[in-house]
């Protein structure tokens, strides 16, 4: 058995933002296990104070370079909920389609560029262009499709331009939407190949029981993405406006990000949490792939988040095809509805790639923002990552892993959460 081990990783690579891993094992006991978040805070909640409501989605999208669409849509929903605006059916469908493509883009980026190199024994995706060109091409095709569709629906793949309170500034081209439908169908082959590749990956068998928090699908066959009830795998159910009861933020000295907990000392959000809480609402084909890859609800292995992301990719592609069919079956309606500000509070919960995201905005009667609060998925995961690392260190001792193996497993663990650290500090 390995008795002593000292791991000190400053600025972990292949994750978004800046975090450190510290593990110290002495005489076979874990003396220290820390996930330290050192990102600089940017104070988005303060920036918004005094700003007119139309700034909220535009500025909040800049919280994150990966899930800018998710932040933009969360802010829009918060404003619309605050002003008692219900988006039209067409707007709701287009927003969901846009969200799906962000999910696909973000998951593919994570699975292939950030996570896969560990499973294939390399330091980045770059050597894979030589050793596994077909894998890289698959990833690039999928990512390109998702990004092209984000351009078409949202105006731009990063920091979208067409998404505004009340609807869209412009609608996608119907002919091109139909072309995208064909590309989506064709992309299933790449996703199935991805699933095959994943089945060859040696996922660590580590697991630690935790509480999974996500939105709940509103009805049979509806996997949740925008709005709805908040649920946990420990049985907590709250309404969207009651989000503070789910987040319980606190500060700790090792993190510039806030942290969250619910029924236990930590909780998890993200693809695995969504899937664990909504397994039966997955598209049947996505569910089948999940089962083939050994992922059944409720699964407590954090490394399985990689698999859950892949399963969600299949789900969003299939659901996008349905959405396009529905959108093309009727003529375009008005793209943007009038917005009349009113005083009050608007709260939005949106499932973004890394988990449930909350935006809360308070307005005066002219629609000027008086207070803002954003609770980020990764900040809800930080404590869980930390306790996972502690447990993983113990597990590595018991399994007789050497320093290098323990270090790699710890890095892979954090990467599995696909943390968006600058987002979490915002």
């Amino acid at each position, binding site marked *: 058995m390995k008795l002593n081990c000292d791991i000190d990783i400053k600025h972990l690579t292949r994750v978004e933002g800046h975090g450190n891993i510290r593990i110290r094992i002495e005489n076979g006991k874990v003396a220290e296990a820390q996930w330290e978040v050192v990102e600089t805070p940017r104070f988005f909640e303060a920036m918004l104070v005094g700003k007119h409501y139309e700034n909220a989605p535009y500025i909040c999208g800049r919280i994150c370079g990966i899930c800018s669409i998710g932040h933009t849509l969360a802010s829009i929903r918060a404003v619309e909920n605050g002003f008692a605006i219900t988006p039209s059916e067409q707007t709701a469908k287009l927003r969901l389609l846009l969200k799906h493509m962000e999910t696909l883009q973000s998951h593919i980026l994570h699975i292939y560029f950030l996570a896969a190199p560990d499973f294939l024994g390399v330091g*980045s995706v770059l050597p894979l262009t030589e050793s596994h060109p077909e894998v890289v091409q698959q990833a690039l095709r999928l990512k390109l499709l998702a990004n092209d569709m984000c351009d078409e629906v949202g105006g731009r793949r990063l920091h979208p331009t067409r998404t505004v309170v009340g609807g869209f500034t412009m609608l996608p081209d119907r002919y091109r939407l139909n072309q995208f439908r064909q590309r989506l169908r064709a992309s299933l082959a790449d996703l199935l190949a991805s699933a095959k590749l994943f089945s060859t990956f040696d996922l660590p068998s580590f697991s630690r029981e935790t509480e999974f928090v996500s939105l709940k699908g509103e009805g049979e066959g509806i996997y949740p993405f925008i709005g709805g009830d908040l649920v946990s795998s420990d049985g907590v159910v709250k309404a969207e406006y009651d989000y503070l009861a789910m987040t319980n933020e606190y500060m700790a000295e090792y993190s510039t990000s806030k942290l969250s907990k619910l029924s236990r000392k930590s909780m998890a959000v993200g693809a695995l949490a969504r899937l664990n809480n909504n397994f039966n609402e997955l598209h049947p084909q996505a569910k089948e792939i999940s089962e083939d890859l050994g992922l059944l609800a409720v699964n407590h292995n954090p490394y399985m988040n990689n698999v859950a992301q892949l399963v969600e990719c299949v789900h969003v592609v299939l659901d996008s095809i349905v959405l396009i069919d529905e959108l093309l079956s009727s003529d375009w309606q008005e793209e943007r509805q009038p917005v009349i500000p009113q005083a009050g509070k608007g709260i939005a919960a949106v499932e973004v790639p890394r988990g449930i995201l909350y935006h809360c905005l308070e307005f005066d009667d002219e629609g000027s923002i008086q207070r803002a609060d954003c609770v980020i998925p990764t900040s809800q995961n930080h404590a869980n990552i930390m306790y996972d690392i502690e447990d993983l260190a113990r597990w590595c001792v018991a399994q007789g892993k050497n320093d290098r193996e323990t270090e790699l497993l710890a890095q892979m663990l954090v990467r599995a959460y696909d943390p968006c650290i600058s987002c979490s500090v915002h």
Partner: protein
Amino acid sequence: MSIQGSLGTFLGVEMAKPKVGFFELSSCEGCQLQLLNNEATLLEFLSLLEVVYFREGMTEKSNDYDIAFVEGSITRDDEIERLKEIRHNAKIVVALGSCACFGGVNQLKNRFHDLEWVKKEVYGDYPISTRKAAPIADFIDIDLEIYGCPVKKEEVERIVSRLVLGKAVTHPQYPVCMECKANENICLFELGEPCLGPVTRAGCDSWCPSNRLGCWGCRGPAPAANFKQLKEIVKRYNIPVERLLDRLECFGGFQNIVTDMRGSGGKGENET
């Protein structure tokens, strides 16, 4: 600006294969991700460079690089040291994106002159370290700026190709409005939307106005900008000055004109 290492020649021109590093200070890291976002040309783009530092994308790290692309603004003391170290290591430092060039959205917190209030609004009484958001040129000499929030990948590709070929890099002097006209868009003022197209530096191919969103000025002022005329346009179309100011102050590129329009101690400063 000269770079060692060679890719051989292309059409008789010597091509360098520079070692490059990508670095991020306070930012959303979106500009770096934009570089991965042009999937169709990504592999060709990468073949021009030897990427030796890209924390977000690769595990290997080296401090031996010719070009450093720095994203993000300075918002905490420790970032100044990191930035100086990058300057020391690199032959060419490129400010990548609006945060690095002007402070970006991060500088929106500067409009509250009381940073203690800003901290308290987000963290309550919990101690947290920050400073006024500032562009990187406030602390080091920079060689090149690539504007935009986000940067446009095509522009980055053009600029990097010119660096590799040893050609001078220039930015358009005219405003976004020119590109917007060339793209035959309906003028957003006609739709009742405020737009900074008349004063913002071109080069984005009127990215936002072509999607029917008025320009927010993320690329900063065009050298040939006519602010007097902009104020007249806004007045003619009956657009509230505050909506214009929201855009002018969003990314930090128009700091002087904002100060001028607000006057000292005007609305938006210390509003609490």
